[in-house]
């Protein structure tokens, strides 16, 4: 594996782990959602890295190009990004409702208020 | 190397110098207003130089028209954003850091009063 590949995948895993850490450890709900987005983006990088071919062109048909990157991961990720923002919006709406009902979006406080959680 | 390439190189070089100078300014100047003057002045001109150099690279194609559109867009939005930001900072009662403050030994960072 080339050096660039190792570097790419290492950073992808690093980003994934930062996102995971944010989701687990930060108690603010909005920040958790940011962590979720970071995690999601790292998965996008992973797919796009798989589809990349060194020296290939982007998947736009051109008469004098022989080698194209794989268009399939691009399609999957393109839709995943839009779906991702839609789900993020639902999560944010939930955070707003929690704030209105409980007066806080800190998870620790929520646990204290509602012992059934 | 024909004349267009040399001209393009000169334009791109000027743009790069302006960009780096602006970035150094934004990093090194003491308070918000001076930093804003560093970035606000260089940003638009740097964009102009870069776009000009790239237009020479692309030649007379549709791409040059698109570059021109980008330049027009940035020509409107960059100064507007800078102006609005400065106005917001003034509204937010962010005081400029003056020589008197420096003499009095006050810190230069983030005085909102």
């Amino acid at each position: 594996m080339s050096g660039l590949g190792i570097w790419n995948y290492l950073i992808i895993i690093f980003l994934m782990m930062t996102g995971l850490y944010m989701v687990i450890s930060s108690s603010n709900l909005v920040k958790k959602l940011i962590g979720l987005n970071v995690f999601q983006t790292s998965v996008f990088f992973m797919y796009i890295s798989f589809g990349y071919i060194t020296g290939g062109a982007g998947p736009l048909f051109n008469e004098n190009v022989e080698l194209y990157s794989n268009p399939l991961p691009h399609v999957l990720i393109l839709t995943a990004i839009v779906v991702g923002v839609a789900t993020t919006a639902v999560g944010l709406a939930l955070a707003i409702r929690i704030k209105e009902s409980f007066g806080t979006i800190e998870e620790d406080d929520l646990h204290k208020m509602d012992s059934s959680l | 190397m024909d004349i267009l390439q040399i001209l393009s190189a000169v334009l791109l070089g000027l743009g790069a110098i302006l960009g780096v100078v602006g970035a150094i300014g934004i990093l090194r100047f003491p308070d918000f207003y001076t930093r804003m003057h560093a970035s606000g002045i260089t940003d638009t001109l740097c964009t102009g130089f870069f776009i000009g150099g790239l237009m020479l690279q692309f030649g007379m194609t549709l791409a040059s028209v698109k570059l021109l559109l980008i330049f027009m867009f940035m020509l409107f939005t960059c100064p507007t954003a800078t102006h609005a930001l400065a106005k917001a900072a003034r509204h937010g009662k962010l005081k400029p850091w003056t020589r008197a403050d420096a003499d009095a030994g006050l810190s230069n960072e983030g005085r909102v009063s």
Partner: protein
Amino acid sequence: MLEQLIDIFLLAFLAIISIAIVRIRNVFTAVMLFGIYSLVSASLFMILDAADVAFTEAAVGAGISTILMLATLSLVGRDREKPLVKKKISFLPLVIVLVTGATLVYGIVDLPPFGAADNPVHTHVAPRYIFQSMSEIDVPNLVTAVLASYRGFDTLGEVVVIFTAGIGVLLLIGGRRRKEENADE
């Protein structure tokens, strides 16, 4: 060569920004840094030849996500308030993250080489999409061809998901405030 250099730089930017997002306590600043993060990741997609994905990420990730998060912050309060519960330092999340990360790093050793043209992923269905779509569909942008025609059923599902998410947001926070109960039709 140059593409690799830019790639390395941008990935390093991403790592720096993500660390900063983890460490910063003010949520507003975290949202702003997330905006930068989206911009950088969109340029990275650009470098990796995924122009359409970069387009989407720039418009959706950097634009709409950031704006929706700002709108949420304006409703839930900007700053991290003093928590009622004193947060006790816990090393459990860090341990979990490190163990998971180590496992994944162990896993990448077996991945096929980065950027090679004969990886398994490029041999199965991609050649058909690439080389026959011009005669079958005649749309130069292969991504559009795959998105709308070969995989049209998937995309229908995605559109329905977005529509459902819109309905969900409307049901959760749309309409009148809770002041007058049962005022919603």
